[in-house]
């Protein structure tokens, strides 16, 4: 009976340790660095601003561009998107929200690129579109 009890105790300890281990692995590898996600806004090849996009607050940026152009960028819910832009084709708005490293939004007429920093999808080397 005593031996059986200690066995049970061992299993219990093992069980808790496994839960702790799983939690630790999830924290480190499955959801890595959620806190440190950063969006980078580039204008004509130059970094304009780096914005952490972990916050639950909605951040709105209205950036003035050459020739009276404007771009309206919104950060919310772990993602970033272009709300409005004074460009003719509106491809940047149509792209929608991005949230993963390697994804980008491009506004060609205004030479604005928004992307999430960090290594992109390791399954592909580049994208054909």
């Amino acid at each position, binding site marked *: 009976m*005593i*031996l059986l009890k*200690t066995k049970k*105790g*061992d299993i219990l*300890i*093992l069980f808790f*340790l496994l839960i702790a*281990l799983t939690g*630790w*692995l999830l924290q*480190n*590898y499955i959801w890595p660095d959620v806190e440190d996600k950063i969006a980078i806004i580039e204008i*004509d*090849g130059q970094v304009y601003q780096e914005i952490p996009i972990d916050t639950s607050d909605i951040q709105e940026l209205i950036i003035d561009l050459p020739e009276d152009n404007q771009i309206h960028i919104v950060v919310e819910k772990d993602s970033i998107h272009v709300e409005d832009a004074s460009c*003719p*084709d509106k*491809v940047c708005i*149509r*792209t*929608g929200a*991005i949230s993963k490293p*390697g*994804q*980008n*939004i*491009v506004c*060609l007429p205004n*030479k604005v*690129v928004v992307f999430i920093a960090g290594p992109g*999808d390791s*399954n*592909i*080397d*580049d*994208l*054909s*579109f």
Partner: protein
Amino acid sequence: MEVSPIMHLKKLFNILLLLIIIISLSITGCTKNTQLPQGEIAPTAKTTFLMGTLVKITIYDELKNDSVFDKAFNRIQEIEDKMTINKDSEISEIIRLNKTAGKDFTQLSPDTFYVLEKGKYYSELSEGQFDITIGPIVKLWNIDTENAYIPQATEIKSKLPLVNYKNLELDDHRKKAKLAESNMIVDLGAIAKGYAADEVAKILTSNGIKNAIINLGGNILTIGVKADGSPWRLGLQDPFEPRGNYMGIVKLANQALVSSGTYEKYFEQNGKRYHHIIDPQTGYPAENNLISVSIITKESIDADALSTSIFLLGLDKGMKIIEDLANTEAIFITYDKKVYVSRGITKEQFEITKSEFQLQE
């Protein structure tokens, strides 16, 4: 009572030891993924805006300095200056050619002459379904601009007779060209980026680069293979999703991949979508069951011109032409998410990653 606590401790110790081993294994296992394999160098990428698009060059070789990027970007700028019709460029040979339409021959550089020759070749190959002299109709539609609207049917009708690649006269010997009728307009928009990518590849390889990816607004040209000897893996844009979502992976080695589709450049009026691929026969955006066509070739200029040509020809005629061309493959995607591939594309080379897309035999 005196034995069991020791047994207990021993067991506990064994379990802890096991866990420590598991944890340390998992740590090293994962760190390996984030570190580059031995001998592999982190790629260097540079992006810039040229030819009305985002240009990205990624070099996987070791670089002493960045000068090769400047050489490549300068070459693209040079090609843009020679071939643009979109800005008031004094040095654009194509603007000069268009201005002297119906009058004189224009002296061209070997660059521009070569691209015109290729453009005429693909116009002939597609029997005018693709036409390098589509300019007057493209100007009417203005799809890339704020003023995009549906042109009057009478306007389209009056401009259509100007669209005829047969009236582009090429003098191969003297590298001169002439448009036979006044008001004709050559538009190299469907081919010049392809040529620029090929020229960038020449610059990179002559500078000793062995592994690189050139991306001109989604047109891909690969140099060599990956450092481990395996082919490059290129995501193929899902035409129903925003940019960055791919529906499959195409493997390339020393090849070009160019896609044309109705999904990015368009405007909507009265609930109807008007995209940028204009049918030279009707003067209106092409209407068939295709949403995108992707072409794989050796040289990027061929993939670029073919992606538009084959799109306009449609699935049946387009596939027939692809099967007759050497080193040329195609992937067609229809509006009902059916995928058709040419015979040379193996399951190894093209893998569909989204199950709603159905590969047709």
